[in-house]
């Protein structure tokens, strides 16, 4: 069994949940495209990425506190709050729009910092602390926007929810019909936004000492403490990052709907779905194993499952049942490995 101990085999073994999720996603999305009358078209890809961005960001937000071994019940509420903030500030001249976006993301980040401070210095369980701060966030959102509405700049809303061609064409940066540009003009802007933030923010963070400390806390907090790691800083950083990702979700939601809506039911549904996405992606709710990229994939799996109801005829009143069963099956796939091992330590080999 020499081969089983090679680095590649170990990586595959240790990330089997994540790999399973990727394979599941690819298979599900491939079949969806095959069944869809306009499968494999740019329009379909744009539509699919658009509706996935908010849940993808929220799943990434949820991942970081989960890696600590906690849960953040305020991510949906922060998304709702930042959505309402954005519906007030993201309009006007290009400079004002840019400033508005920064303000929106800063609001989410600040809320995350507050969560972190309460958890660390208030010594509260994350799940309880964020339940309370989530209610505060929704309260603020209702205060800012008692009735749905608001204005987000039309151009930005159209340009950022379409392909690169429309983005360039809307702002006239250069000739959008240029030959060199045509080969990637079809790429959806939301896809790029997600990739840039996921790989530009999460991966660098993961490799810092603070990032590794987050994993260490989730695996064995006592050992991490004894190793002299700065636990408080890592916990605050984790909630801050969660706030930032939730802010990204709220900002995109505002751009996508060109309005703000303090929808309490939606906030709750998104929080629950973010936890489901984290689990489907292969991140352990006990902490220490997984990552935001895995949750990104998990969120996409969740979304693709719901895409099927539009092309396959299933009784509308049975759809939630079917969705639940498929989800249960998806989560169970990741658990198979745990059932087979005789000694749980073998999982970390």
């Amino acid at each position, binding site marked *: 069994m020499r081969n089983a101990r090679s680095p590649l085999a170990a990586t595959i073994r240790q990330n089997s949940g994540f790999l399973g999720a990727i394979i599941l996603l690819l298979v599900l999305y491939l079949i969806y495209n095959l069944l869809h009358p306009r499968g494999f078209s740019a329009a379909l890809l744009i539509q699919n990425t658009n509706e996935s961005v908010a849940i993808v960001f929220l799943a990434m937000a949820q991942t970081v506190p989960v890696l600590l071994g906690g849960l953040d019940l305020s991510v949906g509420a922060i998304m709702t709050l930042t959505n309402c903030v954005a519906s007030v500030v993201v309009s006007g001249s290009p400079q004002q729009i840019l400033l508005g976006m920064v303000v929106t993301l800063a609001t989410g980040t600040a809320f995350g910092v507050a969560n972190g401070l309460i958890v660390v210095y208030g010594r509260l369980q994350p799940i309880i602390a964020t339940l309370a701060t989530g209610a505060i966030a929704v309260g603020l959102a209702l205060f800012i926007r008692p009735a749905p509405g608001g204005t987000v700049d039309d151009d930005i809303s159209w340009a950022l929810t379409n392909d690169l061609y429309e983005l360039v064409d809307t702002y006239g940066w250069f000739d959008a*019909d240029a030959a060199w540009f045509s080969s990637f003009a079809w790429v959806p802007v939301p896809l790029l936004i997600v990739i840039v933030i996921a790989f530009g923010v999460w991966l660098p963070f993961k490799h810092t000492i603070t990032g590794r400390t987050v994993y260490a806390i989730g695996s064995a907090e006592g050992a991490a403490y004894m190793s002299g790691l700065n636990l408080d800083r890592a916990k605050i950083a984790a909630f801050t990052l969660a706030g930032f990702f939730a802010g990204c979700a709220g900002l995109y939601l505002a751009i996508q709907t060109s309005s703000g809506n303090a929808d309490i039911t939606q906030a709750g549904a998104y929080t629950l779905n973010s936890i489901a996405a984290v689990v489907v992606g292969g991140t352990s709710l006990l902490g220490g194993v997984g990552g935001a990229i895995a949750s990104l994939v998990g969120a996409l799996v969740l979304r693709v499952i719901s*895409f099927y109801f539009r092309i396959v005829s299933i009784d509308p009143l049975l759809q939630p049942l079917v969705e639940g069963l498929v989800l249960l099956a998806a989560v169970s796939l990741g658990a198979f490995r745990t059932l087979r091992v005789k000694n749980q330590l073998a999982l970390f080999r």
Partner: protein
Amino acid sequence: MKLPTVISAAFVGLMLSTSLSLAGPEVVSGPGADPECFAPWSAETKYMQWPAKPGPYKIAVVNGFVGNGWRIQMIKTAKAFAEDPSIKDKIAEFKVVSTGTDAPAQLGAIEDFINQGYDAIVTIAVAPDGFDRVIRLADKNNVVLVPFDNVLDTDAVMQVNEDQLMMGRMWAQFALDELKAKGVTAGKILEVRGLPGNSVDRDRSIGINETFKADGGAWEIVSVVGNWDDGTTQKVVADAIAVHGQFEAVVGQGGSNGVIQALSDAGHPWVPVAGESENGYRKAIAKYSGEGLKGISIGQSPGLVAIAMKAAVSALEGNVMPQLISVPLPVATYKDLEDGKNYWSDLPDNFFTVNEFPPCGVNISGPSIMAQTEADLN
């Protein structure tokens, strides 16, 4: 030609073709088709016309929240109406999805049906705003988008609803008339409101309050929030009775079964009551109207979905349609209640009695739908 050139040429061609086909409805002058059924909201309502398409059509219903009796009845009505002989031949494909209270998912589902080449999409919007992108895409692809019930704050799409302001006014006017007949000209009125922040709740409440104010009597309106839900309503009405003692009349927006239950539990004398169209509420009116429960029942009907579907088909056939269609309010007072006709004593309390709109040829009664099993509808 080299490959990049071919691709870019194809791409430019695609862009040209889409910009040329940029269409959508044309604003025209009225009157519209079938005004008995598709009544314009007001004299200022504009009219729209889409280019006629040959049938049969592909129609989708994109629902948001699912999980209360009203929505389930609405979905069942939609499915039953799609099988109705008057419209069956005009529908090639019919699909219903519920996205939950999730704006991106609902927008995505609508866009998906546009991409799939559906001709019309009927929807209950999860928010009154935020549909600009799908409206733009629907216009681009000549797809008829018809929001109903929870409509959008826009005049760019054709919408179907009942006049909530008028409903509030009629409720209040009925209570006033009944009180006058009893010789009561002043006193406390209990108003039971619906889900806060909702435009339907807002409009109904405005209608109720302005009518009482206009009357000039010394009415004191006590407002409680019942969320249109029987349980919540029963609790808040019971609390209000405990605090205020007695009311001259109760004007409730919904959860009418709860109003009746609370009045009867508290031993409150029967007074004029205005409410929604729940079967249990109508049963109670029929039973106790002789003892003073003079009731009026007006409902937001789940059958609105059928009218929205019918309007979509009519628009696709190229008919001139009002932008905002006002569906007549289905009103029944204690004088017109008749067992087996507009309420059913042998059926449960919690379904909505009004489902039929004879001027529109929508003749699917609530009970016939609720009596059918899932298997029958598949």
